[in-house]
């Protein structure tokens, strides 16, 4: 698994090197996290070329705004992942993406639309069948919308026709479920 690629650098060391513009650390960072970030990006944007563009943009932004990262506010990965998610969602709403949709042939488009409308994960893509099985569908659907579809919890509540509180609770429950799985 890509997680095994993690180098011996600790997070504070990474942050320090990154903020002192050490070019080598960005490569370390890339080898450590590119596939994790791409996993998120490629589920939001199924078009490979565009998804790869966003991955590149993500690392450019990480490099350029490294000084803005504050380790007292959260983990480095959370910061990076939020950059990746925000850029993905921006791309999803941009002209580029809408144009690329037009350029896709019907066959691809069908699978793309399927992909877009699907609320459950494709186990093959996900690669963690166990996780899917463990997570209850109603928890999974809420997490998907917020985590992969770029919905705010308010939008997700509208989409699923649920009270705002219920959505928040389900997100929490889903993440607790994940924590239990990983710990």
């Amino acid at each position, binding site marked *: *698994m*890509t*997680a095994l690629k993690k180098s011996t650098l600790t997070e504070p060391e990474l942050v320090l090197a990154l903020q002192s513009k050490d*070019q080598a650390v*960005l*490569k370390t960072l*890339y080898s450590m996290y*590119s*596939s*994790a*970030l*791409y*996993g*998120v990006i*490629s*589920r939001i944007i199924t078009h*490979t070329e565009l*998804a*790869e563009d966003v*991955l*590149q943009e993500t*690392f*450019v932004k990480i*490099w350029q705004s490294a000084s803005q990262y504050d380790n*007292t*506010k*959260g*983990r480095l*990965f*959370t910061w990076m*992942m*939020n950059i990746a*998610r*925000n850029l993905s969602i921006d791309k999803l709403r941009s002209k580029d993406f809408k144009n690329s949709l037009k350029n896709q042939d019907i066959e691809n488009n069908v699978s793309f639309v399927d992909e877009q409308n699907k609320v459950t994960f494709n186990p093959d*893509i*996900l*690669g*963690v069948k166990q*996780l899917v099985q463990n997570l209850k569908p109603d928890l999974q659907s809420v997490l998907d919308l*917020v*985590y992969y579809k770029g919905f*705010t*919890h308010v939008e997700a509540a509208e989409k699923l026709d649920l009270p705002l509180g219920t959505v*928040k*609770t389900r*997100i*929490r429950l889903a*993440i607790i479920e*994940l*924590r239990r799985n*990983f710990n």
Partner: protein
Amino acid sequence: MSVENLKAYIESGVLELYVLGDLSSEETLQVEEMAARYPEVRAEIDAIEQAMEQYAMQNAVEPSADVETRLFEKLGFSDLEEQEEVVSNQPVYTEEPKIIRLDGSDGKVRTLRYALVACVALLVMSVAALFITYNKLNDAHSQIASLNLDKQKFAGVVSKLEYDNKGLNNMAEMADSKEWATIRMQGQAISPKSKMNVYWNKKDKSVLINYVAMDLPKADAEHEYQLWALVNGKPVSLGVFGKADSTSNEAILKMQTIQEAQAFAVTLEPMGGSVNPTMEKLTVMGGV
């Protein structure tokens, strides 16, 4: 904040939304404040973050290798300079086809230049050929003119010969004939060397003269010769005739008929002839 309130805060789900980046900036600041103040909140956030990180790691997807290459190219990182050089060289290579293309149009220009030279050469040759042909045509024209002149000369000679031939034939016929009397007129005072024959038919009394058989001085433009017959001492006009080398093709000229005559004479008279002969201008005369 009481323990119960803190627990309620943690369980509200706001921390998860914080980690997911789904809070307003105001709410985000509140959470950060809470996290700074309460280690429990900080720990909870950390746990959520780790869970999401694990989740992301578990769901990792390997991007294609060239994304990394392109990324570091874009950032201009040092140990990728070689690749950059290759990239920056590429425009040079892509310019080469342009040079070839320009060469191609150069070739076109060269071809056109050759064509132009060929055209000019052709034009010069054409002009030369035209000039030569024109000269030959002029030569031919002058040859034709000189040939025409020759032809006219020959025609003139031929007609003169025919004319002479007719006259001579007539002279021969007259000499042989018993029907015709030949009267030889001799030169008189003004022109002793002149002589001329008149032929007089004994039966029908017609009179002929033969230009070939006459030798008279050339008459000027205002005068011509007049033939007279002397009948019982009186001159009777038989008509006028031109000078010896008359342009008329007829060598033989028929004059007026006369029934009887003792002599014939020719005088030089003004154009159109006279009623009475000018005796001072008596050129030739001969008796029958």
